[in-house]
C-alpha cells in the first residue's frame, strides 16, 4: 500500500493526521483486522456531534411495527408543532398511506426513472437535479398533503427491465441528501425491512435512526447489525424503540441485551391491541395507550438533544 491510500488521509506515517493504525504496513490478514479495529475506534471517537433532529429514519425487522409507529410518531411530532414530510420507501408494504388516513397513494417517485433512461434529464426532473431541494420544489403530483403532513412514496419496480434495484435507493438517497429543511420541518422515512437499504446508503444523509425492536431474538440481532452499520457510516444518534412489550421484566431484559449491542433505548411502547387492530384493518390507529407511549418517546428524543 502506497502512501496515497491512507484511510484517514495522512500523507505518510506520523503525519499530522496519522493515527498509527498500522494499515499502511499491514501484510497479514490479522494485521489488517487489527488496523481496522483501530480505525473504527478512531472514526467513532471523532465523529461530528449530531446536530438537531431533522432527518429521521424508522427501521427494523419486517413486522415489528415500523408503519404503525411511524404513524404515531408523525402524530406526536405534529402535536409538538412540527410539519412533517413522510417518505415511504418500503416497497414491500404499499399501504402506509392508508394508515395516514389517505384514500389512495401519491404518484410514486419511481415513475420518473424512465425519464432518466435517455441519459439526459427530461423535462419535469430538474427539481431533482439541483444541489438542494426545498419541500416546495417537489411537484404536487408526487405529494399527498394534509394539515402539516406531506406524504411521498418512492414506489416499487414494476418492470424488471427498468433498471437495477439500486435506482430506487438512488432517488431516495439523492432526495434525502439534497432536501433542505426549514425550522420546525422534519422528514420521517419509513424504511423497508432489513438491512439491505443500509448497504445502498440511503441512511447516510440521515441524522437520527430509530430502530424498532420487538421481543424476539431475530429483531434484536438485526438491531445490533443496524447499529453497527450506522456507526460505520457516522450516524451517531441511533436509538432503540421497544415495541409490543408485554411486561416490565421483558422490557428490562431487552434493554440489557440492546445495551450489550451498544444501542441506547429511548422509549417503550407496550403491547396495545388497538395498534394491532388498526394495523390489521389498515386504518389510522385511534387514540390509545400506544399513542401516549410514542408521545413520551418524542419528548425523550428532544430532551436528549437539548
Amino acid at each position, binding site marked *: 500500500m*502506497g502512501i*496515497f491510500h*491512507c484511510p484517514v488521509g495522512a500523507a505518510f506515517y*506520523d*503525519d499530522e493526521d*496519522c493515527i498509527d493504525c498500522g494499515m499502511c504496513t499491514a501484510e497479514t*490478514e490479522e494485521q489488517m483486522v487489527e488496523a481496522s479495529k483501530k480505525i473504527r475506534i478512531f472514526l467513532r471517537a471523532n465523529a461530528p456531534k449530531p446536530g438537531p433532529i431533522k432527518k429521521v429514519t424508522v427501521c427494523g425487522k419486517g413486522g415489528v411495527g415500523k408503519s404503525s409507529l411511524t404513524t404515531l410518531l408523525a402524530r406526536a411530532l405534529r402535536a409538538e408543532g412540527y410539519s412533517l414530510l413522510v417518505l415511504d420507501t418500503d416497497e414491500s408494504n404499499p399501504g402506509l398511506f392508508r394508515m395516514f388516513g389517505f384514500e389512495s397513494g401519491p404518484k410514486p417517485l419511481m415513475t420518473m426513472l424512465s425519464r432518466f433512461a435517455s441519459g439526459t434529464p427530461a423535462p419535469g426532473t430538474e427539481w431533482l437535479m439541483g444541489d438542494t431541494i426545498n419541500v416546495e420544489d417537489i411537484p404536487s403530483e408526487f405529494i399527498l398533503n394534509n394539515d402539516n403532513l406531506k406524504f411521498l412514496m418512492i414506489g416499487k419496480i414494476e418492470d424488471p427491465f427498468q433498471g437495477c434495484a439500486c435506482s430506487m435507493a438512488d432517488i431516495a438517497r439523492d432526495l434525502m441528501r439534497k432536501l433542505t429543511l426549514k425550522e420546525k420541518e422534519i422528514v420521517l422515512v419509513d424504511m423497508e425491512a432489513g438491512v439491505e437499504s443500509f*448497504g445502498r*446508503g440511503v441512511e447516510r444523509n440521515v441524522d437520527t435512526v430509530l430502530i424498532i425492536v420487538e421481543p424476539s431474538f431475530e429483531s434484536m440481532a438485526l438491531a445490533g447489525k443496524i447499529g453497527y452499520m450506522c456507526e460505520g457510516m457516522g450516524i451517531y444518534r441511533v436509538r432503540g424503540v421497544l415495541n409490543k412489550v408485554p411486561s416490565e421484566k421483558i422490557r428490562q431484559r431487552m434493554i440489557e441485551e440492546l445495551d450489550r449491542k451498544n444501542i441506547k433505548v429511548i422509549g417503550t411502547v407496550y403491547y396495545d391491541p388497538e395498534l394491532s387492530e388498526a394495523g390489521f384493518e389498515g386504518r389510522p390507529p385511534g387514540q390509545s395507550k400506544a399513542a401516549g407511549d410514542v408521545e413520551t418517546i418524542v419528548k425523550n428524543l428532544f430532551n436528549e438533544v437539548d
Partner: protein
Amino acid sequence: MSSIDPIYQELAAKMGKPDLKNLPLLLAKLADLEEARILNTLSASTEVIAEKLNLAKETVTKHLKALFEKGLVFQGKTGWHLTRTWGALHDSAGSSDVVKYGDVLDEEFFRLLQATSEEDREQRVSDVVTGKAPLRRNMRVIPRWKSIKNIPGLLPYEDIRQIFKASDPIVLLPCACKRAEPDRECKGTVPEVTCVTCGRAGQYNLNRGAGKKLTYDDALALFDTFDQLQLVHLTGNTNRLPSLVCNCHYDCCGQFQVNKKAQEVLHQDVIVKSRFIATIDPKKCKGCRLCIEKGCPAGADTIRYYPELGEERATIDAEICIGCGLCVINCPSEARMMKMVRAPDHIPEPDVKAGEAD
C-alpha cells in the same frame, strides 16, 4: 552487484520487503552510504541522528533534505521516519524531481524500480497462493465524469468534479509507473505527468518539489486533454475523498500489471470496478469499430452479428467492463451510455478489511 553494503538489505527489511532482491540495489542507487546510515537510525530527530553518527548537524540536515526530496524520508510529528513501505517508496521516489537529482534518478534507477515492481508483483500473487497474505484490492476505477454526469445518485468520491472541488491543494505529479517503463506502449501519445494528488498528499509533494499545483479549472482542463487517450482513472478504494487520482494505461500501470497476473493465476481482479458499466444501443451503433480498435482498456468491446438488425454491431462484455466510461465519451454515434449496476456499498468504508472480493 553483490558488492553493496549489507545496510541496504537491512533497510529493505525495514520496509517490509526482505525478500526482494532488487530493493537493496534500488536503495543503494538512491542513497549513498552516509545517507543509508542516516536512514538506518530512523525514526529519530536531527539532533539524535547527528549525535549517533557523530556528524555535524548541518550535514545531517542537508542529507535529510535530499532524502526527503527523493522520497525516502518523511518528517512527522515526532521526528524523521523512513518511508514505511516499498509501495510508498515506489510512488514517492519514482515521482521525484529528475532534473535536480538527475545523477541518481537515471535510467539505471528506473530500470531497478521496474525490476523491483515486477518482483513484488510476483510475490504478492504467490503470497496469496500460499496463504501468506490476502490479496489487497486498493484501487478502484472511477468513470470519466462526462460519461456519468446525468446519472442521478452519484457519490462524491466517484465524481472527479466533486473530488477536485473538495481538494486543496490539487497537485499534479509525474507517474512513477510510466517513468519506469521506457518502452511503454503509450509513449507516443500519453504524457508522463498524469497523476493527481490531493489534500495532504498533494501538499507533501509540493513540499518536496515534486509536483505542480493546479486550480480546479486547470485540473478539469487537464483531464479534458485525456478524453481521447486510453487512460483509466484509478483511485483509493474507500468511501472517502481520495488523496490520489491516477490516469493509468493498461500496458504500463503497476496496478493493471498485477491485475493481469492475478487474473491469470488466481482468476481474481485486483482493480475494483466502478459502480457503472457501459451499455450499447445496437440500433444507434454504426459498426465503426473505433471502440474495439482504440477504445476499451479492458478489452470488453467486440463485434457480433445482430440477427434482428441483419448486421454486425459492437457489443460489450458486462463481465469484463470495468466501468471507466472511455467508450461512452468517445463513441461517434453516441450509441453508448453508462448504467449504474452496483450499490453504494460496493465502495467500502476505510476500515473494511482489504482483500475481500465482491
